[in-house]
């Protein structure tokens, strides 16, 4: 693997097993329901945070996950990192099923995560160097080598080690802190990095710098990214493929160009329509979507979007549509309007 660390004697690089054709990550039927305590006389209810989410991540690509707040993006990330237990579903990393073939501890070396809040994700009592060196030390690297690695990674993320290594998180800026978080994630030389709203809290100029840094690091270390964001422009810029989530479900997925050019799900259309345009001739005149997402405790039967969908028909309230392939590029959508012969008046008659 192209892991350019000179301290090869310390942390064993994670080798590629399945080859290029084997997806790096295969997620099937991932589900997480949070129990909500009911009152004394009311039944216990559940919030469907993530419901039957399946997707694959190919080696070397960047997959974006978009959706509004509370749609289960971050829960998905935490489930993948095994920071919370899943109710159902299978996670296969490079052909190895997590659990029987690959331990969670090994998975956590192969997969790392960058959190949104750059301040909360660094221990205020540790120096930047200590924070980065913590992971490698946990995995058995000697203190001096871990510190060397930390300083080297600081250089890789564009922070001069002699200035920043001994600083505390409150002494550096938000953008610098997020660079430190990226260095910390890279310290275990993972192959997959989950970026959970990693640039969302940064201001625009810093965001652009960090995005470029991410692109450079991806090239240098041969990384694969799972990029979670609510910022559609950023997702389009960085992603190869995109997953649109609504109330815990994947409603559309496909190559970013296809999804942007021809969004098949009305929710994706609404999301894209909600993006402010910088061109005055293409000003958004009508509100692209109305109402709030329904309470995830009392999910509507049928398609979860039908309460807000302008094209909803009686059919939509009956059963939830499954993801349906639209072309050979992997573009899929879960909407009756995209499924030929579904019975919806706008459904295509033939493929």
């Amino acid at each position, binding site marked *: 693997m192209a892991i350019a660390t*000179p*301290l090869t004697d310390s942390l064993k690089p994670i080798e590629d097993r399945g080859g290029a054709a084997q997806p790096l990550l295969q997620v099937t039927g991932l589900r997480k329901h949070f129990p909500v305590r009911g009152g004394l006389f009311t039944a216990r209810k559940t919030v469907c945070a993530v419901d039957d989410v399946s997707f694959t991540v190919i080696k070397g690509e960047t997959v974006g996950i978009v959706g509004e707040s509370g749609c289960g993006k971050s829960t998905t990330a*935490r489930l993948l*990192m095994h*920071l919370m237990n899943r109710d159902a579903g299978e996670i296969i990393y490079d052909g190895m099923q997590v659990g029987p073939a690959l331990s969670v*501890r090994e998975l*956590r*070396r192969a997969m*790392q*995560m960058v*959190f*949104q*809040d750059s301040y*909360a*994700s*660094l*221990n*205020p*009592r*540790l*120096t930047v160097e200590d*924070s980065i060196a*913590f*992971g490698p030390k*946990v*995995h058995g690297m000697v203190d001096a080598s871990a*510190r*060397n690695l930390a*300083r*080297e990674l600081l*250089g*890789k*993320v*564009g922070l*001069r*080690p*002699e*200035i920043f*290594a*001994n*600083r*505390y998180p*409150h*002494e550096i800026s938000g953008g610098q802190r997020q660079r430190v*978080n990226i260095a*910390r994630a890279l310290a*275990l030389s993972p192959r997959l990095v989950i970026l959970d709203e990693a640039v969302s809290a940064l201001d625009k100029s810093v965001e*652009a*710098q*960090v995005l*470029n*840094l991410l692109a*450079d690091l991806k*090239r*240098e270390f041969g990384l694969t990214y799972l990029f979670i964001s609510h910022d559609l422009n950023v997702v389009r810029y960085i992603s190869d493929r995109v997953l649109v989530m609504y109330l815990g479900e994947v409603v559309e997925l496909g190559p970013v160009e296809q999804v942007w050019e021809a969004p098949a799900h009305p929710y994706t259309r609404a999301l894209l329509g909600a993006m402010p345009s910088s061109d005055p001739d293409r000003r958004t005149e009508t509100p692209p979507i109305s109402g709030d997402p329904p309470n995830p405790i009392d999910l509507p039967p049928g398609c979860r979007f039908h309460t807000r969908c302008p094209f909803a028909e009686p059919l939509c309230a009956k059963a939830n549509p499954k993801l349906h392939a639209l072309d050979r590029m992997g573009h899929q959508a879960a909407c009756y309007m995209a499924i030929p012969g579904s019975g919806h008046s706008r459904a295509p008659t033939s493929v």
Partner: protein
Amino acid sequence: MTTVGNTEANVKSAALATAIPGNRASEAALQSTPQARARGYWTTVGRRLLRDKVSITCAFILFLIFASALIAPWLHLADPYQGSMIRRLRHIGTPGYPLGSDELGRDMLARLIYGGRLSLVVGISPVIFAFCAGSSLGLIAGYVGGRINTAIMRAVDVFYAFPSVLLAIAISGALGAGIVNSIVSLTIVFLPQITRVAESVTTGVRNRDFVEAARASGAGPFTIMRVHILGNVLGPIFVYATGLISVSMILAAGLSFLGLGTKPPEPEWGLMLNTLRTAIYINPWVAALPGAMIFAVSICFNLLSDGMRSAMDIRN
């Protein structure tokens, strides 16, 4: 290496990557003394505390009281147990009695200084014991969560059903009078309070992203506790415990006042306050002296705890 370099960040990272060719440069960086060397957290807190005039004054007063209690036998004071039936209740400033004499004609200055030994031990040691036990319980409850948290915290809540003074009196009364018993009863009184604070602080820290990140690095619970939780939790608990010392001093004095703590003729501030209360109309200034000592020590600890709290709040 990087091929495209449109933005400044790109150029910078590329330049840095070439400027630092691997290990040798990092070693050089390790040896060179960094110009912008950051001070440690506790050094910063100490400096901020030193700049606070109120805290410094309080620390100085406490130091005087502690030091005089410690070196009392070498201060050439009068015998605190030696009374005189003809020299009772002398006023402050009487020759030979700089702070007057008590109802049995014993020198007040000597008794106040010697009294500090017992009063401070009985006042402070319950807080130390409760700090050790309560922090451990609270850390476990806060970090493990779930049923263990419920078990520990509900057990602790039982003690909250009683007012702390009443609880201290009840336990002391049940165990019998004596210094050790009053320390035990006060420890039991403070244990729930410190446990509760420790639990809430730990729960707060535990849910921060850096603990998640540490778990994501593959660290076990004990490593996370040692490296990431303790350092962030002990400070606030310590501040709270320092504030409790004043309460403990007053409760300990109260137990002695009620005859549940120290026994006469031992000099102890609370007990002195009790025995002198009959003289309050004859010589009010002398009768108030032990109370003034209790007041001085507790307010100093309170202000010091406030000062530490603001000194530790470094983000602002």
